[in-house]
């Protein structure tokens, strides 16, 4: 690697004698100046708003901060400042949709989910059994169970296959027929990332109908298989990327100590890469947990809880969100609706379906967050303590 020499070359080339670093708070001054100019300028052309002031202010800050640093610190540091500002800006830009999205979901979903009717937290403990029309009741217990089970099974299918395939590609597909197979697998995995989710659903359906005697079969495991089709390529490609990052030195050191290859992979390669692998797998789970179309085709929809992956339809959160959103505004011909099964009487609200859709979205995001934290804790326990 010739990089260090390049750097040396550059540094020795430009280094004005008066170059010096200024404390960070100078950035604050240029920032405020940028904002001020933006506000004044925007109010002059009568386009002042919080969003426009921040955007124009940031752009002005880039310019001002760079010019200021150029004068006081020299061109190299000015460029450093500019890039630092851009990098921070990039992060802020990504935070913006995240927070606006989370805010929308939380503000619209949380009230309904927590202060659910008729009793608090009913939304998470009741199903949609007997909930008709605009009844302001019902919940997602059945859908939550379905989503967790189906995602669990999809993970049980996909993670070992995906992980072993990645190991195969990185550690075993090195020569001869295995190399050919490796090229073929890489090829197919690449193509696989482009499967539209609905096609995965159609395939899952066709597969089971071909095998099962009863054409009307719909069960949770079919959904898990369909989701695996979408999940495996993501697991393979994420894991492959992470395994390739493990330095060869580590493997060589392990072999030199006489450790067999498989133990080297388990104890050295996988452990070194565990943080990245966990992130990759969590992303893969997050990718499929919100899929709607394949589940609609393979597991259908029910209104009550089904614990059995191998018999009968299941409700899931994404299909539930989709169903409730599509149901649109409810019809309220009278103030109340009677549950035809339990004979309980609920208030009737026109927005009940949309409310439930947001609350279910909130629930789904909450589940993924918890899964994420769990995964991170696990990888934290496993990963070797590196310098960072």
């Amino acid at each position, binding site marked *: 690697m010739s990089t260090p020499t390049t750097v040396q070359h550059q540094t020795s080339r430009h280094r004005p004698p008066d170059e010096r670093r200024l404390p960070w708070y100078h950035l604050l001054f240029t920032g405020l100046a940028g904002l001020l100019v933006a506000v004044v300028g925007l109010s002059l052309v009568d386009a002042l708003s919080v969003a426009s002031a921040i955007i124009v202010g940031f752009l002005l800050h880039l310019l001002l901060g760079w010019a200021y640093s150029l004068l006081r610190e020299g061109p190299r540091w000015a460029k450093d400042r500019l890039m630092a500002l851009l990098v921070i800006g990039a992060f802020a830009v990504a935070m913006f949709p995240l927070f606006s999205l989370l805010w929308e979901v939380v503000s619209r979903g949380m009230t309904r989910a927590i202060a659910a009717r008729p009793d608090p937290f009913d939304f998470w403990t009741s199903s949609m059994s007997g909930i008709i029309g605009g009844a302001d009741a019902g919940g997602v217990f059945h859908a939550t169970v379905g989503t967790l089970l189906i995602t669990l099974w999809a993970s049980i299918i996909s993670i070992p296959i995906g992980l072993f395939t990645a190991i195969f590609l990185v550690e075993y597909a090195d020569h001869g027929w295995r190399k050919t197979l490796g090229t073929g697998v890489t090829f197919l995995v690449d193509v696989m990332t482009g499967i539209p989710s609905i096609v995965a659903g159609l395939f899952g359906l066709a597969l089971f109908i071909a095998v099962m005697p009863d054409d009307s079969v719909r069960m949770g495991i079919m959904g898990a298989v369909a989701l695996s089709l979408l999940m495996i390529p993501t697991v393979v490609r994420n894991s492959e990327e992470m395994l390739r990052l493990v330095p060869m030195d580590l493997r060589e050191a392990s072999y030199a100590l006489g450790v067999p290859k498989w133990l080297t992979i388990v104890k050295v390669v996988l452990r070194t890469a565990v943080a990245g692998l966990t992130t990759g797998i969590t992303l893969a789970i997050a990718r499929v947990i919100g899929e709607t179309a394949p589940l609609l085709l393979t597991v259908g929809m029910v209104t009550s809880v089904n614990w059995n992956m191998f018999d009968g339809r299941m409700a899931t959160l994404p299909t539930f969100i989709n169903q409730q959103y599509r149901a649109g505004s409810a019809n309220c011909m009278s103030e109340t609706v009677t*549950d035809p099964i339990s004979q309980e009487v609920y208030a009737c609200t026109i927005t009940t379906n949309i409310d439930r859709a947001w609350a279910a979205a909130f629930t789904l995001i909450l589940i993924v967050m918890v899964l994420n934290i769990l995964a991170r804790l696990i990888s934290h326990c496993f990963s070797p303590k590196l310098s960072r």
Partner: protein
Amino acid sequence: MNPRKNQLVSLAALGFAAVIALTACGGTADGDSGASDDSGAVGGGYAELSGNLAGAGASSMANAQTAWTETFKGLVQAEGGDITVTYDPTGSGTGREQFLSGQVKFAGTDAALDEEELAASIAVCGGEQAFDLPVYISPIAVVFHLEGVDSLNLTPEVIAGIFAEDITTWNDPAIAELNPDAELPGTAIVPVHRSDDSGTTENFTEYLSDNAPEAWTHGPIETWPIDGGQSGDGTSGMISAVESGNGTIGYADASQAGNLGTASIQVGEEFVDFSAEAAATAVDVSPREEGRAENDIVMELDRTTTEAGAYPIVLISYLALCGSYEDAATGDAVKAYASFMLSEQGQTVAQENAGSAPLSEELRTEAQAAIDDITVG
């Protein structure tokens, strides 16, 4: 063993316990428990019903189907039976296909089975042909979002002109002439259509092409024929597109019109606002489609009716059923459920919870006769 590993072991144990718990609970889920002994399960006598019954099809009747399945379940449970009826709103096309391949035992569809499909049905229907019954009638409202205007009178020609993009501003003389009292702004008209193929689009364009063939030259179609323009996916997408613009106009199931302005349309000499009764009237004055079997009830909607109080922009969804069911339990369940949907109670449930128009008694009696003729076992 180091402490870190211990944590993991306990975590794994927890997971394992959870799986065991799940499988244990799975045992209680209902399977297909035996066939009921005879076919006397129609109209009351729900105690014998058990197992699962699956249907799929038109998303237009999804809300009504939810109300029907749950109410039916309540009625059956009250008599000591136990049945789960499911309806997947996968769309009419998919629903018909699943029905014809035996994946579901009944289908909901916006378009009745055609000749080819009827012939194909013999294979899955135990040697007898399938048939259609009207089960869900919904008025289609012409909805718009225009600052300061809540209701408008429109003729079929004007509606056709708007959607064909020939009338482009709200203060166009053609609209102003029909609405002398409304203060119409010069805002551009933004017609919104359904981006997915749907029965709603087909019924709406059929109305336009029957009543204003000169202004609407594209004929009745499922897929919107004009390139470009605003559109929304599904009824919800359509409504949200109309709501979020100004000067927008679209068409949607009347129960979804919400706070949007709606148009009264010209029928004969008067302007009729949509309502369940007006839609039912339009269906009642329409003849049955000819050339179909006695039990295959398909309506030939008279879109050009001048009957007072009829609202002819109507969507009729049908129920596709087999002429015979080999499995007795399934057959009884289908007959009981179909009878319930077509009963006065069933139609009221749908009207209250999904905003549909109830079928007339005459039509219900005919349909019930067809259901009674289904052979079982």
